[in-house]
């Protein structure tokens, strides 16, 4: 387990109060353990040293006292001297070796007779696991007489170790208790502001209420944080207010403008409708009176008079058609956008048949491909087909073998329909003019028309979410395209 993971496991998901407590406990524990170990090591070392010193002192005294006993071969006296060791209960056994390394006198603290080293070892004190052993030379002045052997058990050390362990554990427990109490008392100065802050943040995010403020409790970093937090809230509140105000104003303005626009639009529509309508009345009068002139005064008019009357009637009727087209164009806005799924193939065939009654289409070579069903305003789309096919018939009418091709391409998100003829065509650079009202590339004398048809097509297709474009070269025919968006239900219906 690496360090990052360890700290994560120890701290990551804990509440701040517990985190503090755990940190303090950890530090406390580590510090106490390290200090305890250092003290223990030091104490252990000094205790051992003190034990050696004590034993060494006793050894020196005993050795000094036993010189005469050795010198004058008195084991009884030596035994008596050694018996003084009874005052030191940790010395479990002792003996004196004579000059030749033979045991001269023995001492046992208890009844148990322990084995002594067969011969004296080197001078000095040595710790074994259970004992402290020492060899002390017995000398009178400079004269070596023998060796004293002392064996001290480690009972003192062991009992001391036990005591120390108990003391350390007690200190550990007491300090943990103290640390706990202190953290509970002092930790509040850190945890309370943080908890208050987080509580405030929670309330704000739950209620979206930016008027709530965190209480500043101290003048430290946490205080600064609280202040910054509150300032941030102020700013958010201000911006929120501004945004709300702005939104309201915007809505109001949009509403206002929409109303204005609607009014203007209605006025405009009403205006164009009434204009068109009013324009027809004098026209009817002109046509009516011209007809009377033709029928009742035919015998009084010479050839020139008849020709002029016919021109007046023709132009007047032409103006009537123009007004009809304009009326239709302006009424487009009033149609509702009800969309239905319909059979495109059938619609095109109908339109073709209807147009065949109005135009001379006998020569035309028709080619109609598969057309997908679409979901759109059927009457509008019908109008589109009428205009496009009528155009094709018109502009290819002067050809010796006119051809009209109608078809469709299915793309990812749209259907593209087209009408292609082999008529006079037009210059591609003027193609964008085609779809504007009253814009014509050919004169009315050459090809009849009002210049409203393609504008109407453009308007309808745009409203249906599609687009219109044309491709041509002069004398090589023209292709008119319009696209309609694919809707899922259309595909289902089609299948």
């Amino acid at each position, binding site marked *: 387990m690496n360090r990052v993971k360890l700290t994560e496991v120890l701290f990551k998901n804990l509440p701040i109060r517990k985190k503090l407590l755990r940190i303090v406990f950890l530090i406390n524990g580590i510090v106490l353990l390290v200090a305890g170990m250092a003290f223990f090591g030091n104490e252990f070392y000094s205790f051992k040293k003190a034990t050696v010193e004590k034993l060494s002192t006793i050894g020196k005294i005993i050795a*000094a*006292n036993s*010189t*005469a*006993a050795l*010198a*004058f*071969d*008195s084991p009884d*006296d030596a035994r008596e001297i050694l018996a003084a060791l009874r005052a030191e209960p940790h010395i479990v056994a002792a003996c004196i070796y004579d*000059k*030749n390394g*033979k045991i001269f006198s023995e001492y046992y603290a208890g009844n148990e007779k322990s084995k002594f080293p067969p011969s004296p070892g080197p001078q000095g004190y040595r710790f074994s696991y259970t004992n402290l052993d020492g060899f002390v030379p017995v000398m*009178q*002045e*400079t*004269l070596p007489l023998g060796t004293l052997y002392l064996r001290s058990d480690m009972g003192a050390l062991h009992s001391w170790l036990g005591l120390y362990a108990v003391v350390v554990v007690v200190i550990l427990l007491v300090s943990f208790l103290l640390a706990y109490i202190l953290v509970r008392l002092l930790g509040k100065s850190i945890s309370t502001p943080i908890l208050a802050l987080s509580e405030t943040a929670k309330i704000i995010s739950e209620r979206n209420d930016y008027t709530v403020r965190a209480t500043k409790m101290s003048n430290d970093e946490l205080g600064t944080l609280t202040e910054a937090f509150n300032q941030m809230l102020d700013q958010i509140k201000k911006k929120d207010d501004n945004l709300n105000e702005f939104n309201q104003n915007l809505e109001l303005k949009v509403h206002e403008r929409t109303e204005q626009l609607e009014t203007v639009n209605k006025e405009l529509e009403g205006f164009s409708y009434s204009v068109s309508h009013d324009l027809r009345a004098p026209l009817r009068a002109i046509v009516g009176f011209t007809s009377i002139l033709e029928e009742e005064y035919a015998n009084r008019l010479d050839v020139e008079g008849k020709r002029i009357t016919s021109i007046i009637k023709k132009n007047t009727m032409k103006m009537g058609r123009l007004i009809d087209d304009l009326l239709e164009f302006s009424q487009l806005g009033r149609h509702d956008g009800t969309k239905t799924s319909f059979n495109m193939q059938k619609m095109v065939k109908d339109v073709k048949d209807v147009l065949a009654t109005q135009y001379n289409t006998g020569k035309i070579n028709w080619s109609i491909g598969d057309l997908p069903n679409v979901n759109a305003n059927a009457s509008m789309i019908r109008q589109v087909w009428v205009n496009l096919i009528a155009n094709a018939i018109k502009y290819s009418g002067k050809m010796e073998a006119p051809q009209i091709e109608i078809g469709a391409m299915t793309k990812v998100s749209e259907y593209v329909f087209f009408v292609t003829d082999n008529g006079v065509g037009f210059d591609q650079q003027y193609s964008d003019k085609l779809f504007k009202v009253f814009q014509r590339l050919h004169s009315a004398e050459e090809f009849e028309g009002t210049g409203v048809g393609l504008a109407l097509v453009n308007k309808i297709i745009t409203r249906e979410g599609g687009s219109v474009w044309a491709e041509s070269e002069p004398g090589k025919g023209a292709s008119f395209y319009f696209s309609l968006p694919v809707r899922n239900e259309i595909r289902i219906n089609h299948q």
Partner: protein
Amino acid sequence: MQVIMSILSRLIQRLPRTVWNGRYWLTVLFVLSTISGNAQNPSLEYQLKAVFLFNFTQFVDWPAESFPNNKSPLVIGVIGENPFGKYLEQAVSGETKNGHPVVVQYYRDEEAAKFCHMLFINLPESDKRKQVIEKIKEEPVLTVSDASDFSIQGGLVRFVTRKNKIKLQINLEACKELGLVPSSKLLKLADIIEPGKTN
């Protein structure tokens, strides 16, 4: 010294285990002494006594005036028949006391004995012993003997064989009068006697 001690220890080691028991000590000593007699090697008893004599030099302090200078020897004298053979000389050879080399001298008459520091008197006749003691009683000489009336005669240290062990009797008062200072450790081992009073 070490050589002698090793010889001694080897000798002891050769003895059967049962004999090493203190109970047979006297018997062994007695047998050895009768067998060896005046032979080259002294009995175990006198080997011990020779070591004791040397050890006295370490446990007794003599007055400074008894040494003409720092290097002058500390003399152990033997008067009467020499019971130690070469053993005593070997025991002290190379040894010193506070820088004074320890030497052994053998005397025929008491006149020369005045100038030693310790005198082992091995004279069976009580009169002769008395004579020697009287001769040197003013000198700081530690007189040593086995004789039973030695203390009464004014001798200072007596070897007593008791319970198979060699014990010491010291006339402390007399020692002090002569300026001889036996170590307290020595006195602890020894029986202190006062011949003036009835023992």
